[in-house]
C-alpha cells in the first residue's frame, strides 16, 4: 500500500517452503546418483570376483609390491581444510533467511559503496537470485557441498587438481558477484574487517591445488606462499596507516570511528551473549583508544609482513604470532562471521591463516614426488622408488635457487617420474593382455574415484538449475505470493465508472465491454508502490503475448491533489506506459473520483508532513461482460525487479484464466 510501507518478508514462508522442496528434490536426485554409482561399483567388484574364481585366482588379488607416494603435507592440509570450509559454507547456505535475504542483506550492501560497474555486476547476480530465490539458494548449497566433498574425496590426480580448479572458479564467482570483489574498490577497505574478502583466499588455495602436484616437492612453493602473504600484510599495514581514512580515530565527530562502529554493529547481531559482550567490549575499547589500537595493528601487520617476506628463522615465530592475532581478529572484529541468518562464510581470517600454515608446512616439509604420471594412470599402480617423506630443515634459502628439479641441500631429492605398470603385472599374477578393460580396474582405488564422481554429481546438480535460472527471465510466483497472498476468485458486477483518459477522451467501463479489463488505482506522484505496480502491469502485458490484444489495462487516479491530466502524462512517460496501445489512465474531479473509489472499496487519504497519498494496492480483473472475476493484492513487497516480475506472472496467469475460462 503506498504510504504504508512494503511488506517484504525475508523469511517469506512460501519461498522457504520452495527452498526446502528444491533441497529435498535435489537431495533425492543426488541419492539416486550415488546409489547408481555404488551399485555399479559393487557390480563391477562382483564381476571381477566371479571371473577371478573362474580363473582359479584369489580375489582381491594379492597386494602388489608397490608404494604409493603420499600427498605432500601442505597440499593435504590445504585440500582438507578448504574442503571443510566449503562444506561449512554450503551448510550456512541452508539458513532459511538465505533465499529472500541474500540479495538485500548480503549482495547489494556489499556493493553499495563500490563503483557503478561493480554495482551493476553484483546487481545482475542479485537479480538472478531474486527472481529464483529457492532454486538459486538450493543450487549454491549443492555447489559448495559438492566442491567441498570433491576436495575431500579426491586426494590425487586429475580429479584433485580439477577440484582445486573448480574451487578457484566458483570462488571467483562468489568473490566478484557475491562479495563485490571483497570491497577492494570501495572506500574504507581494511584487512581487519575481512578485506579483500574471505573467498579470495579460497581462490588462491584452489589455484595452488590445481597446479601439478610436483610444485609441492620444492620448498620454494612454501616460500612463495609465505612471501606473498608478507607482501599482502605489508600492503595492508600501509593502508591501515594511511591518513584520512579514519583508521586512527576511535571517534569521529563524536561518533564511533569506522572500526568501533563496525564492531558495535557486529555485536548487535543475535549471537551468544558472552561473545557479543566480548565484541562490544572491544568496540568500546577501540572507541576510547582508537589511535593506540591502530598503531598496534599497523606495527603488527608491518612486522609480520616483513618476517614473512624475509622467511628463514623468522618464519615460525611470525606464524605463531600471526595465528594468535588472526584468531583474535576473527573473534573480536569479524565476530566469527556466522551470525545474523545470512552469513555465507567464516570470514577471512581463518582461510588466511590456513594459507599461512600451508605455506609454512610446504617450506619446512615439502612433498617427495612429482606425481604427474598418476594423472594419466587410472587403474594403474605407481611404483615409487623413494622414501615416503623427507624432513627438511627450514633454512635461509640460497640467493640463487636452482630450478625445482635440481637437488639442493636440505631439500628433497626430486624423483624421476614413476613408471606405471598395470596392477596385475605389478603383482606378478597374470599378464594383462588376456583381460577385459573392466577386469583391469583396481576397484579398491576406484572406490575413491566413484566417491569423487558422486561429489562431482552433487556439484553438477547444483550448477544445472543455477545455469537454467540465469537464463530464465521469469520469476518465481512464490516471491509475490509471499507478500500478497493468493488471488481471490470472485463473481459480481464490476462497479461502473466514466472518467477522462490521458488523451482527454471519456472512457467508461461499458465502453470497454468485449475486453478483459485489468483495473488498478494509481497516484502519479507516488514514489514507491505505484511505479512498481505500473511496471507489474507493463510486464504482465508483455507476458500475455497475443492475448494482450483482448485486454485493456486501466488505472484510475488515486490522488486528491495531483490528479491533473499533466500528472498522468508525466507518470505514463516515466513508466514507459505511453507507448502501450492498450493502456488508459483515467481521472476526473475529486467529486467524480470519490464514488468510484468507494464503489471499489478504495480509501484515498492525504497524509500530512511530507507523506504521500495513502491507498490500497488492489488490482481487479473484470471479464469481457463487466463481471468482476479476480481481486489481487499488488503490494509490491520489496519493490524489486524480482517481485515485480513475479506478480506480473501471477497477474498474467489470472488474466488468461479469465480470458479462456
Amino acid at each position, binding site marked *: 500500500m503506498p504510504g504504508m510501507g512494503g511488506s517484504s518478508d525475508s523469511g517469506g514462508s512460501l519461498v522457504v517452503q520452495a527452498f526446502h522442496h528444491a533441497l529435498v528434490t535435489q537431495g533425492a536426485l543426488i541419492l539416486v546418483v550415488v546409489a547408481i554409482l555404488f551399485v555399479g561399483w559393487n557390480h563391477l567388484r562382483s564381476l571381477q570376483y566371479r571371473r577371478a574364481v573362474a580363473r582359479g585366482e584369489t580375489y582381491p588379488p594379492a597386494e602388489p609390491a608397490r608404494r604409493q607416494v603420499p600427498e605432500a603435507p601442505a597440499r593435504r592440509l590445504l585440500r582438507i581444510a578448504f574442503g571443510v570450509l566449503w562444506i561449512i559454507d554450503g551448510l550456512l547456505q541452508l539458513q532459511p533467511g538465505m533465499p529472500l535475504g541474500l540479495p538485500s542483506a548480503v549482495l547489494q550492501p556489499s556493493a553499495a559503496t563500490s563503483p557503478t560497474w561493480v554495482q551493476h555486476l553484483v546487481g545482475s547476480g542479485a537479480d538472478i537470485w531474486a527472481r529464483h530465490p529457492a532454486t538459486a539458494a538450493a543450487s549454491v548449497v549443492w555447489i559448495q557441498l559438492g566442491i567441498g566433498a570433491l576436495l575431500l574425496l579426491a586426494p590425487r590426480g586429475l580429479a584433485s587438481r580439477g577440484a582445486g580448479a573448480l574451487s578457484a572458479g566458483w570462488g571467483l564467482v562468489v568473490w566478484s558477484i557475491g562479495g563485490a570483489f571483497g570491497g577492494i574498490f570501495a572506500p574504507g577497505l581494511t584487512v581487519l574487517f575481512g578485506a579483500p574478502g574471505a573467498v579470495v583466499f579460497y581462490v588462491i588455495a584452489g589455484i595452488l591445488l590445481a597446479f601439478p602436484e610436483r610444485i609441492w616437492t620444492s620448498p620454494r612453493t612454501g616460500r612463495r606462499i609465505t612471501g606473498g602473504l608478507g607482501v599482502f600484510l605489508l600492503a595492508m599495514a600501509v593502508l591501515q596507516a594511511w591518513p584520512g581514512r579514519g583508521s586512527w580515530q576511535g571517534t569521529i565527530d563524536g561518533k564511533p570511528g569506522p572500526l568501533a562502529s563496525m564492531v558495535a554493529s557486529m555485536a548487535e547481531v543475535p549471537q551468544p551473549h558472552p561473545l557479543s559482550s566480548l565484541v562490544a567490549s572491544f568496540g568500546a575499547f577501540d572507541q576510547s583508544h582508537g589511535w593506540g589500537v591502530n598503531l598496534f595493528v599497523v606495527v603488527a601487520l608491518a612486522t609480520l609482513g616483513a618476517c614473512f617476506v624475509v622467511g628463514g628463522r623468522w618464519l615460525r615465530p611470525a606464524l605463531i604470532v600471526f595465528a594468535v592475532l588472526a584468531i583474535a581478529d576473527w573473534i573480536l572484529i569479524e565476530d566469527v562471521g556466522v551470525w545474523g541468518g545470512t552469513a555465507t562464510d567464516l570470514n577471512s581470517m581463518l582461510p588466511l591463516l590456513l594459507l599461512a600454515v600451508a605455506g609454512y608446512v610446504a617450506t619446512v616439509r615439502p612433498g617427495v614426488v612429482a606425481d604427474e604420471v598418476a594423472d594419466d594412470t587410472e587403474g594403474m599402480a605407481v611404483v615409487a622408488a623413494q622414501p615416503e617423506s623427507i624432513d627438511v630443515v627450514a633454512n635461509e634459502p640460497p*640467493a640463487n635457487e636452482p630450478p625445482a628439479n635440481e637437488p639442493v641441500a636440505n631439500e628433497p631429492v626430486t624423483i624421476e617420474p614413476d613408471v606405471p605398470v598395470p596392477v596385475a603385472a605389478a603383482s606378478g599374477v597374470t599378464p594383462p593382455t588376456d583381460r577385459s578393460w573392466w577386469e583391469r580396474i583396481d576397484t579398491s582405488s576406484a572406490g575413491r574415484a566413484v566417491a569423487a564422481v558422486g561429489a562431482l554429481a552433487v556439484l553438477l546438480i547444483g550448477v544445472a538449475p543455477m545455469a537454467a535460472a540465469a537464463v530464465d527471465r521469469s520469476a518465481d510466483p512464490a516471491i509475490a505470493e509471499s507478500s500478497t497472498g493468493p488471488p481471490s476468485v470472485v463473481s459480481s458486477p464490476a462497479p461502473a465508472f466514466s472518467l477522462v483518459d490521458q488523451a482527454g477522451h471519456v472512457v467508461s467501463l461499458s465502453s470497454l465491454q468485449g475486453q478483459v479489463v485489468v483495473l488498478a488505482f494509481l497516484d502519479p506522484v507516488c514514489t514507491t508502490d505505484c511505479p512498481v505496480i505500473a511496471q507489474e502491469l507493463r510486464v504482465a502485458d508483455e507476458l500475455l503475448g497475443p492475448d494482450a490484444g483482448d485486454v485493456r489495462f486501466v488505472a484510475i487516479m488515486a490522488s486528491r491533489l495531483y490528479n*491533473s491530466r499533466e500528472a498522468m502524462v508525466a507518470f505514463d512517460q516515466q513508466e514507459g506506459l505511453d507507448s502501450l496501445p492498450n493502456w488508459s489512465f483515467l481521472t476526473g474531479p475529486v467529486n467524480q473520483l470519490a464514488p468510484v473509489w468507494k464503489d471499489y472499496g478504495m480509501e484515498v487519504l492525504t497524509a500530512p*508532513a511530507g*507523506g504521500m497519498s495513502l491507498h490500497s494496492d488492489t488490482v481487479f480483473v473484470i471479464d469481457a461482460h463487466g463481471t468482476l472475476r479476480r481481486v489481487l493484492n499488488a503490494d509490491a513487497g520489496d519493490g524489486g525487479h524480482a517481485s515485480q516480475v513475479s506478480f506480473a506472472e501471477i497477474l498474467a496467469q489470472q488474466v488468461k484464466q479469465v480470458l479462456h475460462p
Partner: protein
Amino acid sequence: MAIGATTVVVAVVVFIIVALVGADSGSTGTEAGSSSTGPAVPLAAASAWPTGAVATVAMGDLADPANTFWELFVRTQGSTQWSLATPLGTASNGGLVAGVGPSGSVTAGVLPSAFLTFSPVASSRDLGATWAPGLLPGALLSAPDALATSSTGTVAAVVTNKKGAAPKVVVAGPDLASWNEPAGLHAALAAASNCSGAKPTRVSFAASGTLLVGLECSGGSDGGVLVAQGGTTWRRGEPQGIAAPGTNFQPLRLTTVATAVVDVALVVRNGLGTGVQASWSSDGGSTWSSGPIVAIPTGWKVASVGVGGTGVGGTGNVRATAVVVLLSHGAQRRINAIAAPTSSWITLPPGPSGTATAVATDSGVDALAVSGGRETTWSWTSGSDRWMVGSTERVPIQFGSSG
C-alpha cells in the same frame, strides 16, 4: 631474496596501495544537496522577508532516506512561532526547496525520491495555508534557491533529470502549467566568459521581476550570476571582487530579500570550502556591495544559510538583509551572522543541539532544531549571550510510508 623478486614485491606493494587508496578516494559519496563542484551544498535553508519567513529542514530518521522527510515551516510577521506548512499529497523524502517571492508568495518543490523521476511543485499565496499543485518538467535541482517566485506569481526553476543531465532553467506562469526556457539563456550560458561549462544552479527574481540566474563553473573558474536584460539579452551580474579571485567560488544562496531598498542577496562559498561571503544588491543585480569573508574552521561545514530579517544589527538601508550561516561539526553548531556589507560577522552563542537552520527575525535570530519528529524553535536576541527555547511542534512524521 633475489633482486628481481624484491623488485616484483615492491612493485606489487606499490600497486596494491595505489589501487586501494585510489579506490578509497574515488568512491566517496555525496550528501543530499551536493553540487558537482566543491564541497556539498546544504539543502536546508531559511528565508525571511518583511511579511514572513520560511524554512526547510530534514526530519524523521535522518540515517534512513526512506524515513527522512523534509518539512516546510513558516512564520508570519509579528509571530514568534513557526508552524508546519509542508505541501500535501506527495512524499518529501528526496528534499524540499522553497522559492519565495518579493510579495511573500511561496512555491515549494519536491525533489524526486525512490522511483519518481519528476518533481511535484505547489504554490501558495497565503504562506502555506493553501497550496495549488503542479508539476515541473523534470527533477528539481537539489540546491536551495533552485526555485523562485516573482511578485506577479511567475515561477522559475532549475531542473535536471535523475541521470544527471545538464540542468536548465524553466519558467511558468502562476498556474504552473506551461514551462518554457527563458529566451537567450542557453546562448548566454554557452558564452559566459570566465566560466567554463557554466551550469545554472540558482534562480531568483528581483523586485522588478528581473530574473537572475546563479551559475556554477567547472575547471576551477569562479561561479557567477546572469541577469536578464529583456528580450534575449543577458549580462554577467556577479559582484566585483567577491571572494578571492580564482578560488572557484560557488553560490550558496541567491535569493530575494524584498525589502524596500535591497532586493537580492548572494551568498557564496569559496571553492576550498574555507570561507563564506555575502553580497547585496539594491538594483536587481546591477551593482552589488560585498561584505567580509567569514572563515569556516577546518573540519566544519556549512549546514544552512538563512537570508533576510533585521535582528542582527546594522544600520541604514541594508539593515533588513541579514545573512545567517550555520556551521556544523558533528553534533556541534556554530552560527555566524552579518547584517550589512559594512558590518562584521558576529559569532552567536553555540547553536542549540540539532539546529538545522537559522534565520534573522526582527529582534534577533531564530534557530530551528529538530530531533526525530520534534521541532524546537530557539531564539537569540541581539546582544544576548544565550539561546532561549521558544515553541515546540510535534510533526506527524509518516514513518514507514515511503518504503
